[in-house]
């Protein structure tokens, strides 16, 4: 079973993402701040990290910057999940070396397939 760490401050979005992915057999971990997300990623070593860009303490870019420097997390897909305008989000994610970006609101139907694609790319 794959484990996915979701770093997201919105309770509503968290509930939605967790419900959709748990129904497809993923084990979910959750952090509502960037710092807690970094701590969980390092401690738990998830198979994938989903990161909201707009977090209340440090933003998603800073979180990815640090996680990319952790040797144990090399190869773990790190994907932004954001409501930013798609073109800006895409450019920012390329600059910050995310593996991809998923634009909110998520499509309940397509979201598990998007996740599967990122995971199968590294397995």
């Amino acid at each position, binding site marked *: 079973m794959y484990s996915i760490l979701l770093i997201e*401050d*919105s309770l509503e979005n968290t509930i939605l993402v967790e419900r959709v992915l748990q129904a497809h057999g993923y084990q979910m971990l959750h952090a509502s*701040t*960037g710092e807690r997300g970094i701590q969980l990623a390092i401690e738990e070593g998830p198979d994938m990290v989903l990161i909201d860009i*707009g*977090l*209340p*303490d*440090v*933003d998603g*870019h*800073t979180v990815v*910057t*640090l996680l*990319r*420097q952790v040797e144990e997390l090399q190869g773990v897909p790190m994907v932004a999940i954001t*409501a*930013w*305008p798609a073109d*800006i989000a895409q450019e*920012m994610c390329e*600059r*910050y*070396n995310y593996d991809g970006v998923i634009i909110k609101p998520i499509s309940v139907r397509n979201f598990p397939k998007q996740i599967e694609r990122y995971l199968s790319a590294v397995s």
Partner: protein
Amino acid sequence: MELIPACEFDMVDLADAYNETRIDYIIPMPMTVERLRNYIHVYDVDLACSCAAVRDGNILGIGMLGIRDDRGWVTRLGVLPSGRRQGVGRSIMEFLLDAAADKALPEVWLEVIEGNNPAHKLFLSLDFSRTRDLIVARRPPKFRALTPGEIVERPRVRHVRTLGREATLALLEKRGDSPNWLNQTESLHNVDSLSALVVETDDGGRGWVTYQTSLLQMTRIIVDVPEGDRAAVTAALLQTLHEFYPTQDAIAENIPADDPMWLGYQEAGYFEAFRRVEMVKTMAEPENPEG
């Protein structure tokens, strides 16, 4: 709807309300309670002159006013989705402008994110006028290497000095720029850990950069180049800074878009994340009670 001074709310309520206003914002920037408290301190926000719009016990929107000497600054203005299109933003703005008038402030400043057209229109209708564009720039620790055609020749650094907080604040007293509210020296006086790097280049250039570092980020990045080519010295200065701090994610806020130094930032790996439009309103002169 009632407008209640923000000092009558606790910080948790203000942070929650602020985050709710930003939930569908063009660039959402939520804040923890601690960050909001620090923001209020650093930017001299006066909570007695700030307000929340409330209906049936629910906050519909908030707005804050910073005050420094004879200047005012509107910030953190936002309306929750449930309060939109009901004149809540305008009412909050009128409260803040009345508070500025009561304090006899001759001018009030603000910034609006480029592309936030409803807010921009509101400010224009309240007689704010555009002064300049400001760039919010980022620099990841590992950025795309420049191709040979993009590389601009920059002078070699021949001397580097680091300064602690007090020396940095003394340096800021001599600055020659016209900083935006966020980067004004008053803001930096309110920041606990602040440092600066001063470089001299082999072509006679001289510049300095202030910064605040944490494990993850480098912020409060403000550059001035008293001598030499502004772009070239900025590039040399920032390259040197990031050689000292290679792992932090750097954020430089409100760089004037028309300043040649912006080229130097880009040369050092910074890119534009988004823009703000700076605006100012000249307040009507208070009536002379003696006629």
